[in-house]
């Protein structure tokens, strides 16, 4: 058998990173920013209409601004992660983009792991931009905890999205469904003593998200909930890599 040319495996991935970041900042990033800005506007609208901000929105009391900012993190974390990981693998399968992509000497596992990581970084950068906008429009508030919470929630939701995207093409609808079922399940049966209660642990730990969203910035950090969420997401992400390896790219 003939010897082949020197292996070029994954040599192109590192130099390709700026292109992936560019993809995020031209596609998912603006969607995240626009939706969160619209939600923020809707939140601030009653205050504006009541004339609280007649002298400028910076006249909003600090505690009220902090509460509003924290309330905005809930949709930001879910939607930002959702936009970043929606179709991350499934779209390439669906539109056949994988065909040219993986005829190059790159591994799908390495490629999609890099996409996942870079989109997370892009999401963090968009969050910084939104905090900057908040600082200009309302008042400067940069809670450092958000830079711990954001990666945790990105891994938690994104890991599930990654697994679903690796498994089949209807990833966005299944992610929403899974999160919804988990929320309802934990809400309804979280306190149950029945043995079937243990099945809830297979679902995303939606009951732990409250601790994250309700945390008081500057006070204690909910390490237990954070570990649960990040751990569950990380397991899902690893399972996604296993599915990606086992399920051929040509399988629709």
């Amino acid at each position: 058998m003939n010897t082949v040319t020197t292996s070029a495996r994954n040599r192109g991935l590192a130099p390709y990173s700026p292109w992936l970041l560019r993809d995020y900042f031209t596609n998912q990033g603006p969607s995240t920013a626009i939706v969160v800005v619209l939600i923020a506007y809707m939140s601030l609208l009653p205050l504006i209409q009541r004339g609280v901000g007649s002298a400028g929105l910076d006249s909003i009391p600090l505690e009220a601004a902090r509460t509003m900012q924290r309330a905005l993190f809930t949709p930001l974390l879910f939607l930002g992660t959702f936009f970043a990981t929606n179709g991350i693998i499934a779209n390439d399968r669906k539109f056949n983009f994988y065909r040219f992509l993986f005829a190059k000497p790159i591994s799908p596992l390495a490629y999609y792991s890099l996409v996942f990581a870079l989109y997370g970084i892009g999401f963090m950068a968009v969050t910084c931009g939104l905090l900057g906008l908040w600082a200009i429009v309302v008042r400067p508030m940069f809670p450092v905890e958000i830079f711990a919470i954001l990666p945790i929630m990105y891994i938690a939701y994104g890991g599930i999205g990654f697994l679903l995207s690796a498994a089949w093409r209807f990833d966005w609808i299944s992610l929403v469904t899974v999160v919804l079922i988990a929320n309802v399940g934990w809400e309804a049966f979280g306190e149950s003593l029945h043995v079937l209660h243990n099945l809830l642990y297979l679902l995303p730990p939606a009951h732990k998200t409250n601790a994250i969203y309700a945390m008081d910035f500057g006070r204690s950090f909910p390490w237990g909930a954070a570990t649960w969420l990040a751990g569950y997401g990380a397991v899902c992400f690893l399972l996604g890599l296993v599915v990606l390896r086992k399920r051929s790219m040509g399988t629709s």
Partner: protein
Amino acid sequence: MDESRGAGELERLHPGRHARRDDAAGNDASWCAAARGRAAGHPPLIEFQGVGHTYRSLLGRTIRAVDDFSLTIGESEVFGLAGPNGAGKSTLISLLLGYLEPTDGTVRIAGMRPRAFVESHGMGYVSELVAIPPRWKLEETLTRYAILAGIPRRDRRDRIAQVTALLGLEEQRGKRVKQLSKGNLQRLGLAQALLRDEQVIILDEPTHGLDPVWTQRFRDVVEGLRRPGRAIFIASHNLDELQRLADRVAIIDRGKLQRIVEPRAGASVFAATPYLLTMATGAEHVAAVFPGAQPRGEGEFVTPSMNLAQLNAGIAALVQRGALIRSVGPSHSVLEQHFREAVRE
């Protein structure tokens, strides 16, 4: 258009790496089941052994797309794959790229599983339907694929310029993929496959959507890609294309290998084949000289199958009767004849 441009540009792309082969002419036409195991004198590079693939739907429905397919392709060979729609060509290509795993048998490239080979070395690949994100610009597309192919930064610009010039895409460089015509998109697909000096090139219906000028140009480009050590695999409906380009052609039907043909081998003087006879005058004598000849157009007849001696005797008889013959030649190519026989219901 400069006919020698393709080979010349490729020589610049991969200097000294390709050589035209004209050694196929003069061999006897041949096909047989034993040819499955041989790669026409080339050391083997790609091997299919007893390969089968079954698609299974979620509801349990199964479709056997490829069945007991065995074939060896040599490392310096241009190999063609022909078959009707649904014959299993696309499945075989997906198996070769590692996009599907065989449900039976093994596929090996240089002794490696296809996915392992592609991830280590890459492949030049053009698909029938070129799928590239529509917002990408042409030059951006080639830059992205060049990066992923591992082409060093210092060489990237030159490579892109060379393939762009080779495929006449200079004027389209700033256009988005969604703005390209079908033909230009197909040429872009070919351009990205030629960025790197790959050992294996797979072309799936490569002239799909190309106009006649670019179809011919494409053939020149593929001829220019020939080099020792490189295997080129072309799947096409276009038998004329395979006849001109391929050293051997596998004909498949309903997932099974039917036969392997060496299309450029000359026909034996003893082989019987039908001929197309075009008469200038004396068409009324054809039926008497060639009993069973079928009229096909004005002054045109397709003779029954006959060898060269019978054909020449008939021509002499026609001339003796005062007829003038405008042209005579095989009514269809060796490959077309094999194809008709192989996929006959």
